[in-house]
């Protein structure tokens, strides 16, 4: 096992990793930008290095400074968290070149799954259903039209290197498809330096269901069941839960087994998530693999009782998974609400600033993972998420009521947060009955159709 790990991230996930390490007896080296200097969670690390200015590009994305910190800090491994460099295969490779373990998949697996088109091909090979589509990059308008006519409108034009909704367009007919192709390619070129796009059948009112995977370096692969992340606003997840409230048992089983086949086919190791969309008839289609730990991993931890961060570290250090598939139980119901420093009454605009006061909810089955406290200033430079409120209860209805209770206790003054917005969602009959799809928030709570 490692003696010392560097955490190449900030905020709540940096704190989450520090916590896992401390419980394992592993020393931690934290990095920080000038924008995070003085943050209290840094006191929980054994050593800290300032790696540059407040902007991510000047600090949390500076591979050179981070590697220097890893070397000077004398660590044996780097945990990248999520975001920033977590899915950067180059960083992954540089770590390994410097003889520092990267806690995550191999650069090869990362590259293979990072390209959506390759991942899609792999899925087909593993007999994992994919959304009908172009089976490769679109070379010209004519072939795009031909594919669209084959699979039927509406279709989705997507960037092969894309993510977070960028380089993505819906087309309902020949004309809009032509425009969409141009726009998506231009946007993808600008955002990712890769103009490659492909076409998929547009699934209406899809639910987002993903499977948490864990694979060691000894050929053992397990799934830790699914998470339903259908409550989204503009492709940003707001609420995640496990198990999914809306898929039948048999579908759940097929879904999890499909995810295992894909991960096996990719020779993937460490933690990863296989994302699917599920249509109204409970057909599921593979979307992509997230080759990292995810924001919403705690809901899986709550229902399985397994510490995913500790497992990531153990796997990277070469240990065998300490459980087999049949040992993993999904017990009770867990829900997570992302608490963002945003003002829902003003189009969710970021609301950085000083937290004057905060009351942290407690009680049975309540977990608040956050690095903030009264007196903490939310910097304007990063993601607006300031914490994750997670509940775990024996019944889903109990979990919803517990979350509503906990949200009402989470009183934060000084900045605006999404806490009250979550209460609206959780109080809605559609949420209670598991009728949320990825467009539900926009249709029902944003005054749009």
């Amino acid at each position, binding site marked *: 096992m490692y003696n010392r790990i560097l955490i190449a991230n900030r905020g709540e996930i940096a704190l989450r990793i520090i916590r896992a390490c401390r419980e394992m007896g592993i020393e931690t080296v934290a990095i920080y930008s000038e924008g995070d200097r*003085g943050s*209290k969670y840094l006191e929980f690390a054994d050593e800290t290095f*300032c790696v540059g200015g407040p902007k991510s590009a000047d600090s949390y994305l500076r591979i*050179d*400074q981070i590697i*220097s*910190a890893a070397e*000077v800090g004398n660590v044996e491994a780097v945990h990248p968290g999520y975001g920033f460099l977590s899915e950067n295969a180059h960083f992954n490779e540089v770590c390994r070149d410097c003889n520092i373990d990267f806690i995550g998949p191999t650069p090869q697996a990362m590259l293979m799954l990072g390209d959506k088109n390759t991942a899609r091909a792999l899925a087909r090979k593993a007999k994992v259903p994919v959304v009908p589509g172009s089976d490769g990059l679109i070379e010209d308008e004519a072939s795009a039209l031909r594919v669209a006519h084959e699979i039927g409108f509406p279709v989705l034009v997507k960037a092969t290197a894309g993510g977070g909704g960028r380089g993505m367009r819906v087309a309902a007919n020949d004309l809009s498809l032509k425009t969409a192709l141009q726009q998506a390619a231009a946007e993808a070129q600008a955002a990712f330096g890769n103009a490659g796009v492909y076409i998929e059948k547009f699934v209406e009112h899809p639910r987002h269901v993903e499977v948490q995977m864990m694979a060691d370096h000894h050929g053992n692969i397990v799934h830790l069941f699914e998470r339903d992340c259908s409550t989204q606003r503009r492709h940003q997840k707001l609420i995640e839960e496990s198990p999914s409230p809306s898929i039948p048992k048999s579908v759940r089983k097929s879904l999890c087994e499909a995810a295992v086949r894909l991960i096996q086919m990719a020779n993937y190791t460490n933690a990863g998530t296989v994302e699917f969309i599920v249509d109204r008839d409970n057909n599921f289609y593979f979307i992509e693999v997230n080759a990292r730990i995810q924001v919403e991993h705690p809901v899986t931890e709550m229902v399985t009782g397994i510490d995913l961060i500790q497992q990531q570290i153990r796997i990277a250090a070469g240990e065998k998974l300490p459980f087999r598939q049949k040992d993993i139980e999904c017990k009770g119901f867990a829900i997570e609400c992302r608490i963002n420093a945003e003002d829902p009454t003003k189009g969710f605009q970021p609301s950085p600033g000083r937290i004057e006061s905060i009351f942290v909810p407690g009680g049975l089955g309540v977990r608040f993972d956050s690095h903030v406290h009264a007196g903490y200033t939310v910097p304007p430079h990063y993601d607006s998420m300031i914490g994750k409120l997670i509940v775990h209860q024996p019944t889903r209805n109990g979990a919803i009521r517990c979350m509503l209770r906990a949200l009402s206790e989470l009183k934060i003054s000084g900045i605006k947060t999404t806490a009250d917005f979550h209460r609206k969602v959780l109080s809605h009959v559609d949420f209670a009955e598991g009728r949320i799809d990825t467009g539900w928030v926009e249709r029902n709570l944003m005054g749009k159709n």
Partner: protein
Amino acid sequence: MSNEQDESGEVFGIARIRKLMELLREFDLNEIDLQDAAQRIRLKRGGIPMVSAMSATGMIPASSAAATSTTKSEDDKNAVFIKSPMVGSFYSRPKPDQPSFVKVGDVVAPETVVCIVEAMKMFNEIPAGISGKIVEVYVKDGDAVDVNKPLFKLAV
């Protein structure tokens, strides 16, 4: 590491002034007036403007863009720091058997190399970035340094 420590070096740090204002409010006071030689913080409430922080000496602003050397008001007003621009290991001399680039008492020009910071097997020569006289060295050979870590104190 905490905000309070950061502020403690600087008389006019915003965090400190905020604290003072909070105290003013909490204890329902009308005035706080703190003086130390040329430095003074005076906070008043009711009718009169609340903050009047002043400095008799013309201080160098702390917001200079380059990280290599920025200024900081501590015990004396004319102190400037040469800070590390990167994470790495500090070395005061070009090679173990050679003398230090600089020592206390030396006068440096902006382009004077004052040390090496080794990062990823690269030896980066660090220039002073400013003219002045070295009055203190904060680090020893082999010390780990990070971005904006003060390496030398200069009198300018």
